[in-house]
Each structure stands twice: as C-alpha cells, then as structure tokens.
C-alpha cells in the first residue's frame, strides 16, 4: 500500500461475503482498501453456513478464493476485531477513528494449537452459537482467516493464562495487550456490516428457552456442517437423539411489527435447503413446515418444487403461535391450518425457528448514517457512505455480491 493512502482510499466495514467482494472489487482496480471486521476472522455469516445458495456450495468454496485474492493483493490492509468509533469529514476526506480490541495473541502465532492444549478454561463456542464448549484459547474455526488463535482473557484464571503463555513456543501470547485506537483517512466508506439472527428469546410465544429441541435455522446450519459441534450429524441438542420429525417455524420474528416488520427474504429458501440436509441423513423423517406465504423468488421456484413433492414433508399454511415443551424432549407446535380451518397441534422431535435477519449495525445514526425503518443502512453515495449486502437490505449471497460490486463502483468514483 502506498504512502499516499487516503487519497481515494476506501474503508470497508465488515468482512463477510459482501465486504470481501467490495474490498476486492475496489482494490483490483487499483484503489487502496482497508477492510475491517469486528470478529477475529473474515467470512461473516457465510462462513457459518453448511451450504449456501445459489449452488449449495460449502462456504470454503467461495470464501477461500476471496481470501487468496486478498492475500495476493498489496492494496488491501485487513484489521480483525476492529470497529468504527467515529467518522468525521466528508466524501473524499473522511477521518475514521477505529479501535482494535486485544486479541492477546500476536502475529507470531503459527496456529500450532499448543496454547489450546494447555488452556484449562472453557467458553461457549461463539462460532457454533454456544452448542459446544471450546478452550478459551482457540482458533475461531478450521478455515479461519487470518489463521491465528484468539485468547479470551476474561474467561481465564491466572494459572490458566500462565499455562497458555508457557505453552507457546513462538512468544505469541501477550496477556498485557491493550485495545488500540487509530485514525484512517479515506475517501469513501462501504458499510457491509451484515446481519445477526433475530434473538429468538424475544419471540415470547415460541418459548425458545423452554426446550433444547427448539433451535434456530443458523444453529441448524452448524449442526449440519462437518466442522460443527456434531461433526455434521443432525442430532437434537441436549440428548443427541436422532430426530424422527422436524417442524420448521417460518417468519419467526420477521414480517411482524412486534419484532421486525420486514420479510427476511432468505428464510423460506433456508428452510428448503435445510430440508435437503435432513433428507440426506434421514430419508424417512417427517417434516412439517408452517408458513404464512412461501417466498421463493425467481429461479428458486424450482428448488422449492423439489421439496413440495416430498411425501414426508407437509406444508401447513398457518403461523406457529405457541410451542409447548414435552416430557420426552420433543415439543408440540400449535398453529391454525388456514386451509382446513382446524387447529394443528403437531408433536415433533425437533423444531427449527426460521429466525430472520436483524441488521447488525446498531449505532448507525451516531456514525452519521441514514437508517431506514427496519434498521437497514440507506446507501448515500453522494455523502460517501455506501451500504452493501445485508446491511442494505435482507438479501441472499448472490444479491449481496451484486450490491457489493455496485457499492465498490460507487466508492472508487469518490475523491479521485
């Protein structure tokens, strides 16, 4: 990266599939790009998926090539565990104050894993939504980029820290590391801050906490993923039972003015995709999908038809409005089948809440962004603030790619 960075440089906030795409598109036409992420790794939500649309690839497939392009590109500088504190200035001349949280493991790390072996304290695995425990010194996931361990200092006792430090042959563990604030000068900012799964606990009538048999669709992705807590076997959390029946609860928190008014766009397709995971492992399992409307836009229609034809999969038009935990570890979901006008009480072994996308950017207004009624960031190229991917609207990976390329195109035109 040249010393003239700042003249025409682009800051990309959020390094998921959208941020990676936008950063690469801008850098590969010769711009200087700073790419930051609040996680200790890049790849965002896509990294957590088992397979992703449109071609049902595993995430390695799309992310690895992007990581390689980033490593090969001298124009991109990456920062993990980094967040934006403040933005001042205007298009062509932004001063952005950033803060990097301490990783407690420096760049000497070779990811040998000795620290994890020596670590005695455990934490809930954030990458797997707490479905398993991992050591407090950990690699976020197998294909984490950058490939470097993280130490959760707060979770460790003094002896544990000593042991971790002693185990490292490369002097990579630095328990005294402090958070670091620094300022960048950039011409444009691309906000690709992505989304969080809607907090299922907030949907009171679905009683997420009442039974381990109730999971979210993102948890289902982890259960089905080879690098997940069950090594890819779909088992009921809690008792590891092989489920014989599943219920999918669509619109859990979406299209609901008590939660999120918008349609999250991907949850119907995610459910069809997850039915394909189940079918691979349990060809005979009974599957019940409770929906208001099945939204499978465009070419996804044919993917849907494949599963609507499945005779062990029942589609019930009616939203689940109550879930009761049963003594045998299963749950009963309750809805009205609006096509027969009867109430349905369906007992299942496992229940998947198709929770939607909540925009992850929470302090957008403080940073000078315009936020729409649903919490998404309005793209304002004239102000040098461009949003992309799921920070802009609830979309799939394919559309995220399009909007990120568009965002890069806008960004490179500012401050030349």
């Amino acid at each position: 990266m040249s010393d003239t960075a700042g003249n025409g440089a682009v800051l990309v906030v959020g390094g998921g599939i959208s941020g990676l795409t936008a950063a690469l598109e801008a850098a590969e036409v010769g711009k200087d790009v700073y790419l930051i992420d609040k996680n200790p790794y890049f790849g965002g939500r896509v990294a957590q998926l088992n397979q992703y649309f449109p071609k049902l690839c595993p995430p390695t497939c799309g992310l690895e090539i992007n990581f390689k392009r980033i490593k090969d590109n001298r124009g991109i500088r990456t920062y993990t565990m980094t967040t934006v504190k403040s933005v001042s200035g205007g298009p062509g001349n932004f001063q952005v104050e950033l803060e990097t949280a301490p990783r407690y493991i420096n760049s000497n790390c070779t990811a040998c894993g000795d620290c994890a072996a020596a670590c005695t304290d455990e934490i809930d695995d954030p990458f797997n939504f707490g479905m398993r425990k991992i050591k407090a010194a950990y690699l976020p996931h197998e294909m984490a980029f950058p490939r470097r361990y993280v130490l959760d200092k707060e979770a460790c006792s003094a002896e544990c820290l000593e042991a971790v430090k002693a185990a490292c042959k490369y002097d990579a563990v630095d328990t005294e590391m402090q958070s670091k604030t620094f300022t960048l000068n950039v011409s444009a900012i691309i906000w690709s801050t992505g989304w969080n799964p809607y907090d299922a606990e907030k949907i009171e009538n679905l009683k997420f906490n009442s039974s381990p048999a109730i999971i979210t669709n993102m948890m289902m992705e982890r259960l089905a993923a080879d690098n997940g807590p069950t090594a890819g076997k779909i088992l009921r959390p809690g008792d590891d039972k092989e489920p014989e029946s599943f219920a999918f609860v669509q619109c859990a928190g979406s299209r609901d003015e008590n939660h999120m008014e918008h349609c999250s766009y991907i949850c119907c397709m995610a459910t069809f995709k997850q039915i394909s995971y189940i079918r691979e492992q349990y060809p005979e399992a009974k599957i019940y999908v409770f929906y208001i409307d099945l939204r499978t836009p465009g070419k996804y229609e044919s993917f849907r038809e494949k599963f609507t034809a499945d005779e062990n999969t029942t589609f019930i038009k009616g939203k689940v409005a109550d879930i009761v935990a049963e003594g045998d570890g299963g749950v009963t979901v309750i809805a009205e089948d609006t096509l027969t006008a009867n109430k349905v009480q369906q007992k299942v072994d496992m229940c998947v809440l198709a929770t939607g996308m909540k925009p992850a950017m929470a302090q957008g207004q403080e940073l000078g962004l315009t936020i729409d009624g649903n919490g998404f960031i309005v793209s304002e190229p004239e102000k040098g603030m461009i949003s992309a991917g799921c920070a802009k609207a609830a979309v799939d990976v394919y559309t995220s790619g399009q909007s990120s390329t568009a965002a890069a195109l806008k960004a490179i035109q500012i401050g030349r």
Partner: protein
Amino acid sequence: MNVQPDFNFIKAMKEAGGDTLKQCYQCATCSVACPLSKDGDPFPRREMILAQWGMKEKLLADPNVFLCHHCGDCSDACPRGAKPGDVLGAIRAYAYQHYGWPSGLAKLCSSAKNLPMLIGIPAVTIFVLWLISGGMHIPAGEKFAHVGYTHFFGHWDFRLLSKNVLFIDIIMLSAVGIAAFSLYKAISSMWKKMEENLGIGEVLYRPSVSLFIKDFLWPSLKEIVSHNRFRECTVNVDRVRGHLPLMLAFIGLFIVTIYSAFTQDVIGIFIPSMHGPISMWNPIKLLANVSAVAMIVGIGILWMNRTKMEAEGKASNTFYDWFLIWMIAGVGVTGLAAELLRLVGIPSLGYVVYYLHLVSVMMLFLYLPYTKFAHIVFRTFAMAFERFRESAYVKDPLND
C-alpha cells in the same frame, strides 16, 4: 366460490373500529393466541377474512363472533396490528344494528352524531310525561325526607296504583317491552341463520322450551356468572375486575327492581303504605346500595382500563364501546347521587338528578338491543348455540 363483497359492510367495519381489518395477512397467530378459540373451529382468523371479503351473511350467522370476549390477546400477538379483537367488536356492533328492530332506532345507536337524539328521546319523553302528570312541584324538606322521589310524577290518593308507579311503569315497561320484543326477533333470526350455517339441513328434533333452558341456556348462564371464559384472557385480565362487580351489580339491582316492583306495584295496590322509599336497614335496600357502589366501582375500572388500552394503542376509540360505558356510568352516578341528595335533604337538586337518572335508565333499557349492552343477550344465546351444535339434536351420535 363466487364472492360478492359488500362494500357498505366493509365501510361499516371501518366506522365501528375495525379500520385495521385490511392489515390482516391471514397468518392465524390470533387463532392460537385466543384462549377461547376451539381446535375444530378456531377464530378469529376466519372471521377476519370473511370481513375483508365483506361476507356479512356468514358473519351474522357465526357464533364465534359473539363468543369472543374481546380480551385483546389476539390483537396483542398480531404481527400486523390488524387488531382482530377490535374487528370482532365491530362485527358485533354491525350485527346488533342488523338484527335490531325497529331498524331506525337501531341505526340511531350506531353513531355519536346521533347522541343529541339518543339522549333527547328519553329526556323529552320523561319531561312531557312529567308535564302531563302535573306533579310539577318539588316537596319541602320534611316531606322530601318522607316520600323521597315517589311523588316525582305527583300523587293521588287513588288506592289501587300510586300515580308515580303508574308513570314509571308507562315509561320503563314500554322501553323494556320494545327492547324485549326486538331481542326476541333478533335472537330468533340469529338462531335460524346459525342453524342454516351449520349446513346440516333441517334439525329433525327440537328441544322443548324447558329442555332448551335446562340443557343449553342455564349452563351458559352459570358459565357467564362464574366469568370462567373471561378469566382465560391473559393480556387484559384486569377487565374481569371491572366486569365481574358490574355484572353482579346488575343482578343485584335486578333483584331489587323485582322486589320493589312487587311491593309497590302489586302489594302496594292493597297496602298503600308500601309506597315510598325503602328503609335503609331493609336487606333489599342494603343490596341496592351495595350494588350501586359495585356498579360505580366496576364501570370505573372498565372506564380506566379502556382509557389505558386506547392510550397504549391496544384498542380503538369507538362510540360503540364508550356509549355503553357512559350510559352505565350515568345510571350509577345519578342513582347514587339522587339517593344521597335525598338523605341529606336537598330536594331541588335531587329532583334534577333523579330526572337524569330516569333518563339514563330509560336509555339503557330502550337501547339495549342495539348497543354493546346487547352482548348480554347475544353472547348468552351464542354460548347456548355452541352447546346446542355439539348436542345430539345436531350431531347424530350414531353417525359420528
């Protein structure tokens, strides 16, 4: 199915507080949230789409519309703010207008615009009768303490029927008579529609009146008095605290009225001394006073509750709901105030308040079939119908 939407019906829905109707996207959350909704016949989701389509004939024949206690659980859970609870209230308001006889009077009760007329009818009626009666003088302090308001319409020494009782009977019995006839017509018509809507054809055997009362009406009444269904509500269970004392107050005052009608109108014919205020220590008078207080407390709780719900946006502000609250509050407050003014001996003001009391009582009776008050009859019979349709008269036990 060929749907013929009735735009006037949809318009009436909007005016009666069901303006949120079109928000509904048929997710059926409401049918599960409703604690009164039955597995085989859930509501209010189906009622919402029938209302959206303007299919009023189906709704007028739907007992679920009247079984709804408007507790608000559905509106609270609704993801679209469609307020199914309010829409069902609006459908009930429409049904009372529809079944109401005479239709002019029923229509009058549908809008706050007609309030001057609604108050005017009883006010003028009673005022004119007061003029005719010639009782236009207010008794002095001592006499007031003795006769109270029993000489409101004057007094004669005619033995058989006191003048006051005669006039009150003319006013109130006419009002009650019109209401009773109207309700009889309405309920017969509704019952017929509900039977037709079951789609079972002609009911071959019908219960006798006594069997009907024993098997269907009486169990429903028992359920109503216990308020069991009302208590199922979760969001707005506070309403029970207002509704229960209010209902018990009405039962109490009904007993008092029957007692005093009997003593004054019947026994009074032979023993004129029965006329006049009842002693404060008479258990019936005690019941009357307790009921009066319960009525004011009950309606006060409901008034505050409704205000709170509207402030929180959980219910719409409708004339349909408020008119009944105002009428009952009017009856309670004027009744108790008239009594207190008699006890402290302020005849002039007492007479004015007593006049207002007569006006509000007449309103309550006369408008019963067309206002929210009609629920006491419509819901009772809908609950009876619910039992009827599950009975062997409708369901052949050999076939099921």
